[in-house]
C-alpha cells in the first residue's frame, strides 16, 4: 500500500471522530502510574530545604548535623553541583541551589536524602543556614528604581531592547501608525490581576535512577522532556545522552511544569548516593515549587469615532515576573502582541515591561500574557460601548480583526481568523430565563452558605472576545519529531516525546496514525528522550498541530519507504516544522519578516451571572461560547478543553489568587487557595467554528488556551452588568460587589 491508495474506512479512530481516550481505562481503574506513584527497589527519598526569606544574603550553610542523623545518605549544597550552577528556560539566571543570595521565599537552598521521607524531613531541620536579610523588592512599579536583583544579567541581547533601568526582564514597545491621533470619545482605565496558580492536582514528583556508568534516568511529570534534559545535563556536567528523561503520568500542568522543579535535584542525589532517589512535593511545597501566572497592572486609553470605530489605543502593561526570568520574555511578547484584542486598530502604542522582584517566580500558565490583557481590553470595550450608547456585541463586530487586517506588529493576517463568525455564533446562543425565587439555596449565589432568600440578587449578562497565538513565536526554531515503525504484519508503533499532560495528545497521534496508515493496529511507545527526537513543549496551544504534523509526515514517509522496498519492516523518523517566524524589531516592536506569530485562534463568550449585592457573592448561571478551532480532531476531547479552560478563567474571575505578604505566599493550600468546585461551574454551551488553518496539518488549531483567555473577561463583564461597578481587578472580591 502507498500513501496514495484508497484507505479502508475505519469504524473508529480517525481524525474528526468523537472518541473516548485510550488512556482513560487505566486512569479509572487506578493503574495509571503518575510521577508520585513511582517506586523501585532500594529507593531513597530526597527533600529540599527552602529559603524562609524573600531576599537575603546567604552567609553560611552547615549540613554537618544533618549528616549525623539516622537513615541519612547525604546533604548537598551549591558546592556539590558539579557543572553549571545556574539554569533557566530563557536565561540561565536561577541557581540549582542558592549560592550567595536567596531571592524568593521557597528558593531551594540544600538537599537531603534518606531511607524514609520522615527522616529526610527531620534532617532538613538540622541544617543550619545563616542568612543576612535584605530589603525585599515586592512592588512591581518600585522595582524599576530599586537595587537590581540580577546585577550581572545583560540589559540587552536576544533581540531585546536595551533598558538600563534596574530589574527589567524585558521591555517591549510596539508602535503602530500614529498613536496620538484623536478620537471623538476617549475611555481610560487601570486594571489589575492577582497571581493565579496552575493548581494541577498531581504534585511535582520525580524518580532519578543512576545507570551505573555515570549517567542517570529521570522519570518525571513535565511538559517538554528534551528541554528538561538540555537544562539538567550541563548542571550535572554530563553529556545530553547521559541524561535520559522519561515521561511518567502527568497530573495536569497548565504551564506549571515548563520550568524544572526537582529534575536536577533528584539526579544530583541519585548520582551522589548511587541509588534511585524519589522526590515528591506536598501541596504547600508545590505552591512554592512552580511558577505562577504573572500578576499585572495595565493602563489603557481607547479612542474611537462617534460611530464606534477604534482610532487609537494606548496600553501600558506591567508584569511582575518575580525572582527569576522563567518565561517572562514570552509572556511580555504575548501581552504586547495580543493586548488590543482581536480588533482592527490602525494606531497603537503598547508598552510592556516585565520586571524582577522578590515575589514568587512567575512564568507560564495557560493563555499567558493574553489572559491579563484580554481582561483589560474587554473592560475597555464594554466601557466604550456604554459611552457611545452602542450594543457591546455590535461594537465588537464593527471593529473585528479579520484576515487581511494587520496586528499592531504590522503582521498581516493570512491564515484563518473567523472573528465575526465567532462573535455572531456566541451572541446568538439563547440565555436561560431568570429562575424564580424562592428556590433551593444550592442555586443561590454562595450556595447553601447564602443565608438569605435571594432578595439581593441582581442578574447580569456579559460578553467578551479574546484571541492568542498558536505555536511558538519570534523566530524560535520550533519543531517536533515523530518516529513510526511499520511492522511486516501491518501494525505500527509511534514514538514521540510529546508530553501527554491530560489534554489528549496521545489520542491525536493515534487518530493521525490510524488515518494515515489505514489500520487500527497502532500503538504508542513510551514518551522518552532515549528513542526519538524532541517534540517541543506541550505549551502555547501547539502540541496538537505539531504532533499531528510530525506523525503524519512520519507515517507518509514510512508508507513510501515500504513501497520502495516492496514490504518488510520500516522505521522512519521525521521532523515537522511550522512556518518560520522572525523576531520583532527591538526598537519598534514591528515584524522583521512576514510574521512573528504563526497563527491565531479567537473565542467569544456570553455569560449570565447572578450577584448577591448584599452578601458580595456571585453565581455564574450559564456560559455560552463559540471558538475558532480550525478542525475538530476529537470533539469530545475538544469540549473538555473548553469546559476546563473556562473553569480556570472562572477561578481567576471569582476566587483564585495567591496572596503574598512581603513576598511570602500566605495561602499555599487548597483550604486557602480556592479553585472552582462542582458547585461553582455552570453549564457551558459550546459552538465549534471550523475554518481550517491553511498552514496546519488537517487545518487544526490548538484549543486549550482561548477559553481561559476569554472567560475571566466575560464573567467579570457580566458582573459589571449586574452591579454597575467598574470592577477593574481580578479576582473580584466580595467588597467590590457589595452595593
Amino acid at each position: 500500500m502507498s500513501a496514495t491508495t484508497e484507505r479502508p474506512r475505519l469504524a473508529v479512530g480517525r481524525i474528526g471522530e468523537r472518541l473516548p481516550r485510550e488512556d482513560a481505562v487505566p486512569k479509572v481503574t487506578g493503574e495509571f502510574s503518575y510521577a508520585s506513584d513511582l517506586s523501585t527497589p532500594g529507593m531513597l527519598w530526597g527533600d529540599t530545604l527552602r529559603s524562609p526569606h524573600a531576599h537575603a544574603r546567604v552567609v553560611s550553610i552547615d549540613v554537618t548535623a544533618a549528616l549525623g542523623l539516622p537513615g541519612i545518605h547525604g546533604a548537598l549544597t551549591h558546592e556539590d553541583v558539579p557543572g553549571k550552577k545556574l539554569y533557566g528556560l530563557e536565561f540561565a539566571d536561577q541557581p540549582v541551589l542558592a549560592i550567595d543570595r536567596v531571592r524568593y521565599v521557597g528558593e531551594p537552598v540544600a538537599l537531603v536524602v534518606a531511607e524514609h521521607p520522615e527522616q529526610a524531613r527531620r534532617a532538613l531541620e538540622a541544617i543550619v543556614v545563616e542568612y543576612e536579610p535584605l530589603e525585599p523588592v515586592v512592588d512591581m512599579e518600585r522595582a524599576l528604581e530599586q537595587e537590581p536583583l540580577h546585577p550581572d544579567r545583560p540589559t540587552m541581547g536576544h533581540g531585546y531592547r536595551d533598558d538600563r533601568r534596574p530589574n527589567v526582564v524585558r521591555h517591549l514597545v510596539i508602535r503602530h501608525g500614529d498613536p496620538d491621533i484623536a478620537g471623538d470619545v476617549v475611555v481610560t482605565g487601570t486594571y489589575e490581576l492577582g497571581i493565579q496558580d496552575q493548581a494541577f492536582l498531581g504534585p511535582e514528583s520525580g524518580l532519578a535512577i543512576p545507570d551505573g556508568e555515570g549517567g542517570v534516568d529521570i522519570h518525571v511529570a513535565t511538559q517538554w522532556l528534551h528541554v528538561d534534559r538540555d537544562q539538567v545535563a550541563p548542571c550535572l556536567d554530563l553529556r545530553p545522552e547521559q541524561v535520559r528523561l522519561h515521561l511518567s503520568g502527568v497530573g495536569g500542568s497548565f504551564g506549571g511544569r515548563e520550568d524544572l522543579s526537582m529534575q536536577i535535584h533528584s539526579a544530583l542525589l541519585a548520582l551522589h548516593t548511587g541509588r534511585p532517589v524519589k522526590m515528591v512535593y506536598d501541596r504547600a511545597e508545590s505552591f512554592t515549587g512552580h511558577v505562577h501566572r504573572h500578576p499585572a497592572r495595565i493602563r489603557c486609553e481607547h479612542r474611537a469615532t462617534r460611530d464606534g470605530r477604534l482610532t487609537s489605543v494606548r496600553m501600558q502593561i506591567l508584569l511582575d515576573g518575580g525572582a527569576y526570568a522563567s518565561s517572562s520574555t514570552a509572556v511580555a511578547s504575548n501581552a504586547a502582541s495580543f493586548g488590543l484584542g482581536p480588533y482592527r486598530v490602525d494606531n497603537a502604542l503598547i508598552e510592556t515591561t516585565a520586571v524582577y522582584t522578590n515575589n514568587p517566580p512567575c512564568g507560564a500558565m495557560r493563555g499567558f500574557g493574553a489572559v491579563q490583557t484580554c481582561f483589560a481590553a474587554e473592560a475597555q470595550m464594554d466601557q466604550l460601548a456604554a459611552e457611545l450608547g452602542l450594543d457591546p456585541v455590535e461594537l465588537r463586530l464593527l471593529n473585528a480583526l479579520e484576515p487581511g487586517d494587520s496586528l499592531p506588529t504590522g503582521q498581516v493576517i493570512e491564515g484563518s481568523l473567523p472573528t465575526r463568525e465567532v462573535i455572531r455564533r456566541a451572541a446568538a446562543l439563547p440565555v436561560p430565563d431568570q429562575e424564580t425565587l424562592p428556590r433551593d439555596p444550592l442555586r443561590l449565589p454562595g450556595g447553601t452558605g447564602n443565608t438569605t432568600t435571594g432578595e439581593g440578587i441582581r442578574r447580569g449578562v456579559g460578553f467578551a472576545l479574546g484571541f492568542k497565538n498558536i505555536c511558538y513565536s519570534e523566530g524560535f526554531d520550533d519543531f517536533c519529531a515523530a518516529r513510526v515503525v511499520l511492522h511486516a504484519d501491518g501494525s505500527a508503533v509511534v514514538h514521540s516525546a510529546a508530553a501527554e499532560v491530560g489534554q489528549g495528545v496521545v489520542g491525536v497521534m493515534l487518530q493521525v496514525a490510524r488515518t494515515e496508515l489505514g489500520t487500527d493496529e497502532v500503538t504508542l511507545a513510551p514518551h522518552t528522550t532515549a528513542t526519538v527526537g524532541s517534540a517541543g513543549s506541550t505549551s502555547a496551544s501547539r502540541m496538537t498541530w505539531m504532533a499531528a504534523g510530525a506523525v503524519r509526515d512520519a507515517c507518509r514517509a514510512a508508507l513510501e519507504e515500504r513501497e520502495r522496498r516492496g514490504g518488510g519492516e520500516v522505521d522512519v523518523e521525521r521532523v515537522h516544522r511550522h512556518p518560520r517566524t522572525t523576531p520583532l524589531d527591538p526598537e519598534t516592536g514591528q515584524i522583521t519578516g512576514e510574521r512573528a506569530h504563526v497563527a491565531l485562534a479567537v473565542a467569544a463568550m456570553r455569560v449570565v451571572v447572578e450577584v448577591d449585592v448584599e452578601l458580595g457573592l456571585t453565581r455564574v448561571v450559564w456560559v455560552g461560547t463559540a471558538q475558532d478551532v480550525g478542525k475538530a480532531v476529537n470533539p469530545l476531547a475538544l469540549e473538555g478543553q473548553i469546559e476546563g479552560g473556562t473553569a480556570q478563567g472562572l477561578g481567576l474571575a471569582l476566587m483564585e489568587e495567591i496572596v503574598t505578604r512581603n513576598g511570602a505566599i500566605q495561602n499555599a493550600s487548597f483550604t486557602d487557595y480556592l479553585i472552582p468546585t462542582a458547585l461553582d461551574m455552570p453549564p457551558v454551551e459550546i459552538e465549534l467554528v471550523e475554518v481550517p488553518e491553511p498552514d496546519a496539518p488537517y487545518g487544526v488549531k490548538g484549543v486549550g488556551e482561548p477559553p481561559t483567555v476569554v472567560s475571566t473577561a466575560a464573567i467579570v463583564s457580566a458582573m459589571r452588568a449586574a452591579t454597575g461597578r467598574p470592577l477593574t481587578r481580578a479576582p473580584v472580591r466580595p467588597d467590590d460587589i457589595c452595593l
Partner: protein
Amino acid sequence: MLAHVRIDLTVNGERREGVLRGGESLLTFLRDTLELPGSKNACEQGECGSCSVLLDGTLVCSCLVLAAQAEGHDVVTVEGLARDGALHPVQQAFVDAGAVQCGFCTPGLVVAVVDLLERMPHPSDDQIREALSGNLCRCTGYAKIFDAVRLAAGRA
C-alpha cells in the same frame, strides 16, 4: 525513633497486614505499604477528595484517617471496583463520557460516584453537583463528569 506497629484490615475484600512506621495516614499506608497507589495524594488535608475510599461503606478522605484507625475495618479503594476484568459501570461511564483528562482526580471521583449512586440511584443535577463538591478536578470543568454520573445512573 520511629515506632513500629503492625495492623491488619480488609482491603478490596482481602485480608491485608502491614507495619506502621509512624503516625501515617491510611492513604500513605495504602500507597506505600500495601502498594495500592490508585488513591491519590493531591492535597493530603481533606480538601480535594483525590484519596477517597470507602471505609466500612462510608465515603472518606483516606488522608484524614490514621492508618491505625483502620485496624480491623473494611476498606474499598478504586482498585477494588472492577470485577473479573470488567470495569465497574461507573468506571465505564467515566471512559465513555470523556470525564477523564489528566486523571489524577479520577479515582477519588469514581469512588465518590459509586457511593452517590448506591445511596441515590437517580440523583438530580443539583444532587450530583452537591455530592461531588468535595472532589476537585482542575482539567474538565466537571461537565463531562456530570455526564458520566447521568450515564451510569441511566444504565443501571
